[in-house]
């Protein structure tokens, strides 16, 4: 099947209906394995059992950024190719990305109190992550408040591309500035510094969260396509009424 076939909403819906149950089942299985491994992972020699928060915090942070990446690709589809499915994909990614960014900030705060002695500090990593959440809320506000969906989609697409500048700032903030947040320890030059006993459950949980993101994204896209159908049917109904009673 050609990729262009996926760009047809009806074809896309039929594929989503077939794929979604399998994706949901795979997500549940992977979460079961990941949580079992996370709960049985050894304590960290410095942080003790609080290292278990890492299995939520790190995947949530990755997916908060991944969600914005999805919105950037969708924004190109909206602005360059003006394809309606691209806009649907961007709009669907926003609330999910915002939720994962929120989870990242809250779990980070709960991890910070016992390890750093504070819930919050205005260091570059934490602040840039908070900016990401505010950007998500800005995009959602554009989608939800625009009277004409096309105009809201274009404004949200532009904000998505402009906001992408925050992604490298988040990633490299711990290298560019002196931060309380630790530097990269999973994806870094010279390999991961995390012990394999902690790294493998972390990667399983990251994979499970990624599948959850994909499952929710496809489901929200399906809802959005239905919502647009409802809108177009109501507009047609109004048009017909106006023509019948001029």
């Amino acid at each position: 099947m050609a990729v262009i076939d996926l760009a047809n909403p009806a074809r896309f819906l039929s594929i989503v209906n077939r794929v979604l149950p399998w994706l949901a089942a795979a997500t549940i299985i992977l979460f079961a394995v990941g949580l079992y491994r996370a709960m049985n992972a050894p304590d960290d020699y410095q942080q003790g059992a609080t290292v278990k928060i890492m299995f939520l915090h790190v995947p949530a942070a990755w997916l908060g950024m991944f969600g914005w990446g999805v919105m950037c690709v969708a924004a190109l589809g909206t602005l360059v190719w003006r394809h309606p499915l691209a806009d649907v994909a961007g709009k669907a990614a926003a609330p999910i990305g915002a939720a994962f960014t929120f989870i990242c900030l809250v779990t980070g705060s709960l991890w910070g109190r016992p390890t750093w002695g504070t819930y919050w500090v205005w260091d570059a990593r934490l602040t840039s992550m908070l900016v990401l959440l505010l950007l998500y809320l800005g995009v959602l506000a554009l989608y939800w408040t625009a009277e004409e969906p096309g105009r809201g989609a274009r404004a949200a697409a532009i904000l998505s591309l402009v906001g992408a500048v925050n992604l490298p700032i988040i990633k490299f903030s711990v290298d560019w500035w002196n931060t309380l947040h630790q530097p990269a320890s999973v994806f870094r030059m010279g390999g991961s510094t995390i012990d394999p006993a902690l790294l493998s459950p972390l990667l399983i949980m990251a994979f499970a969260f990624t599948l959850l993101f994909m499952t929710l994204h496809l489901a929200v896209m399906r809802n959005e396509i239905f919502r647009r159908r409802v809108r177009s049917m109501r507009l047609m109904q109004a048009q017909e009424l106006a023509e019948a009673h001029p």
Partner: protein
Amino acid sequence: MNLGPHADFIIAAYAVTAVVVAALIAWVVLDYSAQRRILGDLDDRGITRRAQRKTGS
């Protein structure tokens, strides 16, 4: 499993994550039911999309 002296923080982190993920899933499922119901109502009233009229489906 011993969560040590900071068990409250660990449990709170997992609880918040569970609540947020559950809320997301609930929103998706409820929204799906709502959109399907509205589409069904419009269909019952004979209102169809232009694309459906063209294909006759």
